[in-house]
């Protein structure tokens, strides 16, 4: 039947953000052109509209930025922790004040729904800065001995899925501990990092403490390989992470990697079904599944498989896909054409290997990069869609019969970033969580983030922890 209660468009205003036609690199407190004058365009993935033209960093720019960061390090690291904390608190407050502007900007540049940037990304970004601001003058009590020292210049390379949040995860602990930073945002989402550069100026942060170098993989490689960088932090694909590990082998650089994942969301037969369905949907369709810790493998107990799948399909058919700036949009655009073709290819492989594909009836906009929420049933451990990270709105459904089988299947992956357990039985939660080799295990919820909680991977999902007290270690000489 046609539904007369059709929600009218409710778009967030674009007028709150003023995007300049061009942006430079942010080095030593100034916006500057790239040494070789190269630029690239950043587009809005939901419309393919060009948002701005951005300077593209090369090796020479990286060198310039590292020198600036090195020069700034001496004074910055010598500041009392309480003074560094003041800058971080100031940054956190400015982020809160400008959160609407930043949310709209992030939605335009990334393609994710405004609902998410407004209610998840931006509050978490501010919370992260507030949290590490609090640590700045308490490092003596962090458990790493008295007066722990910073490492020096941190080279940081971040992905496009949570551009500003990943920046916060990297920059907040680095500054709190007294390091200076050279950060390269992803080539498809450079804008929020450049707005952050402006926030650093607004906060009066000393020149050279934060340097932002928009660019491609070559710039990222130059940052990680630079001989005067003391610490490398990377979030992104496992393939690039391995490459970085090879580059850094034999150097004295400290390295943390946060890479891919193939999270198992395990639903036992005594789970709270309606909330489990919400958790499954949030686990894989949050940010169009472009989340390293996405619950992309659903492991459901065979005895409730049909019932759960019916509920899940009914729920998927209520998801609203479309204009990311519309406040009622649940599913936004895929970040880039390249990512869309990667998702499409993996989904075609899934079909070719005999997994059963299902999507709700769903009209995709004619411009931009879009992919309908997709389920695969009849999936086994041998299917590509159960093994490879798809990084898109695609859920593979597998079954199990006993708790042991659930654990064995959940752990049977080269990754180990996240997992979820759904059961009303507390003892089972504890028993299963202890056996899962995943950096974060959620029970009766999924994709819950908090700056106080350490986050990181097992196996090919990387090493090192970000967030919480543990997150300080990566930036301290301990």
């Amino acid at each position: 039947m046609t539904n007369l209660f059709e929600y009218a468009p409710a778009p967030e205003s674009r007028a709150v953000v003023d995007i300049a036609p061009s942006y430079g690199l942010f080095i030593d407190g100034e916006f500057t052109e790239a040494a070789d004058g190269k630029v690239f365009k950043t587009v809005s993935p939901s419309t393919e509209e060009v948002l701005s033209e951005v300077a593209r960093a090369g090796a020479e720019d990286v060198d310039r930025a590292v020198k600036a960061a090195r020069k700034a390090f001496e004074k910055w690291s010598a500041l009392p922790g309480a003074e560094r904390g003041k800058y971080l608190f100031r940054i956190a407050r400015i982020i809160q004040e400008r959160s609407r502007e930043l949310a709209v900007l992030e939605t335009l540049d990334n393609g994710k729904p405004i609902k998410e940037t407004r209610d998840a990304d931006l509050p978490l970004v501010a919370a992260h800065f507030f949290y590490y601001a609090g640590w700045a003058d308490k490092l003596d009590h962090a458990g790493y001995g008295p007066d722990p020292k910073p490492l020096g210049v941190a080279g940081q390379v971040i992905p496009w899925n949570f551009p500003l949040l990943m920046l916060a995860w990297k920059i907040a602990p680095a500054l709190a501990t007294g390091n200076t930073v050279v950060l390269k945002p992803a080539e498809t989402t450079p804008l929020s990092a450049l707005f952050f550069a402006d926030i650093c100026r607004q906060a009066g942060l000393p020149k050279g403490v934060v340097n932002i170098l928009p660019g491609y993989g070559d710039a990222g490689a130059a940052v990680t390989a630079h001989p005067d960088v003391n610490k490398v932090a990377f979030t992104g694909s496992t393939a690039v992470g391995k490459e970085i590990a090879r580059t850094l082998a034999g150097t004295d650089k400290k390295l943390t990697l946060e890479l891919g994942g193939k999270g198992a969301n395990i639903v036992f037969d005594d789970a709270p079904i309606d909330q489990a369905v919400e958790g499954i949907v949030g686990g894989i369709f949050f940010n169009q599944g472009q989340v390293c810790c996405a619950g992309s493998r659903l492991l459901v107990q065979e005895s409730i498989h049909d019932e759960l799948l019916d509920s899940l399909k009914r729920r998927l058919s209520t998801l609203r896909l479309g204009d990311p700036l519309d406040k009622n949009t649940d599913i936004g655009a895929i970040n880039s054409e390249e990512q869309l073709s990667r998702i499409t290819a993996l989904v075609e492989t899934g079909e070719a290997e005999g997994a059963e594909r299902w999507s709700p009836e769903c009209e995709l906009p004619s411009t931009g990069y879009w992919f309908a929420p997709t389920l695969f049933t009849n999936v086994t451990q041998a299917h590509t869609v159960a093994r490879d990270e798809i990084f898109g709105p695609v859920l593979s459904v597998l079954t199990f019969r006993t708790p042991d089988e659930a654990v064995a299947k959940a752990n049977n992956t080269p990754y180990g970033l996240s997992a979820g357990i759904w059961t009303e039985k507390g003892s089972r939660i504890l028993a299963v969580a202890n056996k899962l080799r995943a950096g974060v295990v959620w029970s009766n919820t999924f994709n819950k983030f908090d700056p106080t909680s350490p986050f990181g991977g097992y196996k090919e999902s990387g090493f090192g922890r970000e967030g919480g007290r543990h997150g300080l270690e990566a930036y301290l000489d301990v």
Partner: protein
Amino acid sequence: MPPVPKSDKPAKGEKKARAKAGEQTERAGKAPAAREATASFADVTSSDATLRRFLHGLPGVDTVGLEARAAALGTRSIKTTAKAYAIDLAISMIDLTTLEGADTAGKVRALGAKAVNPDPTDRTTPKTAAVCVYPDMVATAKEAVAGSGVKVASVATAFPAGRAALGVKLADTKDAVAAGADEIDMVIDRGAFLAGHYMKVYEEIRAVKEACGDARLKVIFETGELSTYDNIRRASWIGMIAGADFIKTSTGKVGVNATPANTLLMLEAVRDFRAQTGVQVGVKPAGGIRSTKDAIKFLVLVNETAGPDWLDNHWFRFGASSLLNDLLMQRQKLATGRYSGPDYVTVD
């Protein structure tokens, strides 16, 4: 999937027609189907033990997840045409209520007049679904709304505490029905429920249902007193298998009344019950819903949980009194572009 919100909005006449269609059309074949559903649960209701096993075998409710879902749906932004539709729909779903010791025939007549003609300045305003009064006011209310299509609902069964012998409760019900009540709002025995005597609760609902005859039965759980979401889900199922036409959150007489979360949970229950038995049961949140904004949030819950089949006053009601004036003021605002004020709606 509703994709990008479409611009082809329902024509105004179409909306009206629908709201009207929603008004009190009798669904043929509804009663026997409900009886069949009750019969199909005969095994479950054969003893206290079987009923307990059934109710405790229902999937649990995760408090945090349920409340998070209700809050997330509360962020839907309902504007322009959708808002206009929602306001008219909400007005048409109100059980305009007065349940005070101080109720008089005059007060009830005023309420009836308002139900029939909520906005004297705009005769296109939909009527409310019903007026809801104590049993001794049913005859007066009936007269006040005569010929309008507005129903008369009466609370019964020793409302609001329900602390009386079954015979008294049945007499209370029969009295209201005899006076012309179209709908009966009963309260369950929360004491029996909390003590685990589920059969007592079930049998009482069945007995009241019998006493109702053709009147539709709304079963009030007083969710604030049941206190846990698991209890609310269990109570919902007892009510539905006992033949309730509506399940209703609360009396409006205790601290916690209708909330988005407990209403969402009851909407899940009626959705699951229809999937299992084919029988559709209505839902009525009552108490504490005072603003248009709140009412629209509840309609979003209905739309995205039970589905559009429930977006009709035969299947969804608001138990409220002050809500109506806020809806009317918002309705006037949509029509004129400015807020009027409390002196431009009637005080009752």
